[in-house]
């Protein structure tokens, strides 16, 4: 009995020893593949249903839309559509001329029927998709012929073109299925450069090159998404070369930059973090108070210490590196003296000497909330609380779980001030965040009303000309910066690390390979993913 029991741990130790010897002698294979680290598992490999970034990233490789943004995020290039025509008017039309000879991953041909099918599915109320609002202004669609697809809008709507970047679904595979629960969502078929191989839940998703891709076979053989939920652990995998590409956190940059086999890239992101003030609260109704609050918060310090410098302080509601951000509007400087002055002008003084400003007997006290699970917002909240405290404003700071936070506080408009962020699309139309019609049921949960801005938002989404649009959004930027309904904190700079063995490859007429380094584009590092390659035996230098 005793021997039986003791043999087990002995066996364990022996196996451990053998394993130690084996594993340590394993060489790192030079395989032509890309391993990407992902914090979360994907949910739906279906572009119509997916909401999370893990799913969207993969869908971007497996599916194509009709068009896609160009590398500067300022215009479009054709994807499944070779070209398109916009016919302006009170009911504008976009006619897409589709590529011929595109095949689905199962070999069947792609046609305009698939596009119509995708649109119908999106508009079907039973489909659990959030994308429907993108197409609400569509009056009708028609399949003119198998390679021509026409959309007619109820009114001019310039963001409309961008919405046709959505991945197109195969009609032949899905027409008889319930799209919400079909096994297709675990095992998709698209037209994209990579096709689906397997998905092991919570472990990995494997894609391989599509040899019949219409832009030519991608140079990489495989792409693997590894799901590693902890950032410190995925950092370790990066160091042991178990992962090739990784989204780096600001505090890791220093360490990552010193690793010889990694190249670090950075790029401003399409998102920004802000403090939103509930404008229905009398505390925040005076513009001077809001401006004072912005002056009192040391945003540069936040960027320097919380983001390690990887952020830009922005002055308005747009990402700082895109065409519609108004560079002439400068962020309000950190100036606690001016803040104090503005508050005094607005009637706030410390009349009873308790260290807290008051007006008409009421102290300047409010609750700042944000969602839990976000380290940066948490740290920002603590810092802001301290900085405002020095000014005599009593702020309590609390975090809540995301789902509760949204439903009970934000959507119910039951809050004083909140720290949140917006993750925007390349199109400037943020009507649903800022227009006064969106206060009741939209995302204007701070209840901001500005008639001139309202008018401009409406014009902006009807205007198709880029330069005219630019003027409109620059003016909106000025108005919002003046009003400070948010304190715009910063727009983070995204950092990523990639193993140096990856290059871009092109073949010249004689078939020789030409290597170029991978560059960061506004549209992202992976814009030219189909050209990525791991050369055999050749090590790419910096």
């Amino acid at each position, binding site marked *: 009995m005793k021997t039986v029991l003791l043999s087990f741990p002995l066996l364990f130790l022996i196996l451990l020893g053998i394993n130690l010897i084996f594993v340590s002698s394993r060489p790192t294979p030079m395989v032509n593949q890309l391993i990407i680290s992902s914090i979360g598992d994907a949910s739906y490999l279906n572009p119509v249903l997916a909401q999370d970034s893990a799913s969207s990233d993969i869908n971007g490789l497996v599916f194509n839309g009709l068009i896609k943004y160009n590398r500067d995020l300022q215009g479009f290039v054709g994807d499944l559509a070779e070209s398109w025509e916009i016919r302006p008017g009170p009911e504008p039309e976009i006619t897409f001329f589709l590529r011929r000879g595109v095949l689905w991953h199962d070999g069947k041909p792609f046609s305009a029927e698939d596009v119509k099918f995708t649109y119908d599915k999106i508009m079907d109320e039973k489909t659990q998709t959030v994308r429907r609002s993108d197409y609400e202004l569509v009056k009708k669609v028609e399949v003119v012929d198998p390679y021509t697809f026409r959309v007619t809008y109820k009114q001019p709507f310039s963001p409309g073109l961008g919405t046709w970047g959505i991945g197109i679904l195969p009609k032949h595979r899905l027409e008889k299925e319930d799209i919400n629960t079909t096994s297709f969502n675990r095992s998709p078929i698209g037209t994209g450069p990579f096709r689906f191989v397997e998905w092991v839940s919570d472990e990995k998703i494997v894609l391989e090159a599509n040899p019949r891709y219409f832009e030519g076979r991608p140079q990489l053989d495989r792409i693997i998404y590894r799901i590693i939920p902890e950032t*410190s652990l995925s950092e370790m995998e990066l160091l042991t070369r178990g992962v090739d590409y990784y989204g780096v956190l600001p505090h890791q940059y220093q360490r990552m930059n010193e690793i010889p086999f990694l190249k670090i890239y950075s790029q401003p992101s399409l998102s920004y973090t802000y403090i939103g003030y509930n404008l229905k609260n009398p505390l925040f109704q005076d513009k001077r108070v809001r401006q004072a609050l912005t002056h009192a918060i040391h945003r540069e310090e936040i960027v320097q210490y919380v983001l390690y410098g990887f952020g830009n302080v922005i002055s308005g509601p747009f990402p700082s590196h895109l065409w519609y951000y108004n560079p002439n509007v400068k962020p309000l400087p950190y100036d606690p003296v001016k803040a104090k002055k503005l508050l005094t002008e607005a009637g706030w003084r410390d009349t009873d000497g308790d260290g807290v400003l008051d007006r008409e007997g009421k102290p300047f006290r409010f609750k700042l909330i944000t969602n839990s699970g976000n380290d940066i917002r948490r*740290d920002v909240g603590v810092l802001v609380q301290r900085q405002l405290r020095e000014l005599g404003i009593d702020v309590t700071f609390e975090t*809540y779980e995301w789902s509760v936070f949204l439903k009970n506080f934000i959507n119910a408009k039951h809050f004083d001030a909140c720290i949140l962020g917006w993750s925007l699309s390349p199109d400037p139309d943020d009507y649903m965040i800022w227009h006064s019609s969106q206060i009741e049921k939209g995302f204007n949960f701070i209840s901001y009303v500005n008639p001139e801005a309202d008018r401009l938002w409406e014009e902006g989404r009807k205007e198709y000309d880029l330069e005219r649009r630019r003027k409109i959004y620059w003016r909106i930027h000025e108005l919002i910066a003046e009003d400070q309904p948010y304190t715009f904190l910063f727009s983070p700079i995204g950092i990523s690390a990639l193993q140096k063995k990856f290059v871009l490859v092109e073949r010249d007429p004689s078939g020789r390979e030409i290597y170029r380094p991978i560059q960061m584009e506004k549209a992202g590092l992976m814009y030219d993913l189909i050209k990525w390659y791991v050369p055999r035996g050749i090590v790419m230098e910096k």
Partner: protein
Amino acid sequence: MKGSGTISQFKLIWKYFKRNRLALGGLTIIIAIFFVAGTAPLLAPYDPGKTEVSLKLKPPSLKHFLGTDQLGRDVFSRMLYGSRISLSVGFVAVGISIFIGILVGAIAGYYGRWVDSLLMRLVDVMFCFPTFFLILTVVALLGPSIFNIMVVIGLTSWMGTARFVRAEFLSLRERDFVQAARALGVNDRRIIFRHILPNALAPVFVTATLDVATAILVEAGLSFLGFGVQPPAPSWGNILTEGRTYIFDAWWLTVFPGLAILLTVLSFNLVGEGLRDSLDPRLRGRR
């Protein structure tokens, strides 16, 4: 009739407890932690919430005994205040669970029959839930405030106490002094609370002490998953969790809170086991 038995009982327990060096050590540490928690404002060299970003992530030094965190706050001061949270969660949660446990166990053990059956069925149901998962679910859904955490832990750990108390009641119920009281017409409630209960309490102390240890571990576990006491309030659990991201840059954010939790939990376990040994007549003889 009432008090004399209990006091001499305590004296006896203390006599045996004293001989157990490990348990004594645990008790000393617990007293020390209580002292620290109580005098935290006096002992803390810095304001635990004071941020000083230029001093972020500094290793332990003479100025900052346990280093600073990512916002430049002094870890030593935060740990001192954090002891308050750990101890209060432990005690309040266990207080609640003891209260419920005694109530349920006493009623079940005294009245017996269908009341007992029903209540024990309830105990079975509670045991069927994977406790930690249940706590996590409820706290996640209702919001991780310190109050919710205490209450939920309390509501999910009373079953052990209930069983012990019930067992004691079942055996004590038939004893002479109880029969005598009943014959004299003393009402049930008095019998339960003034006569039987003081004699049934001994095992409860043991479970209570051990449960405090468990409760502190549970709070730390909840913090690890993001559902413990929320920042900016300092608890050992959330200092550990916040430090997770910086584990390569600031080992002190992980090591010190973990050690604090370990030490505290260990002390409670040692005291609890010491109590158990002292109370067990069969083991007493040995020493």
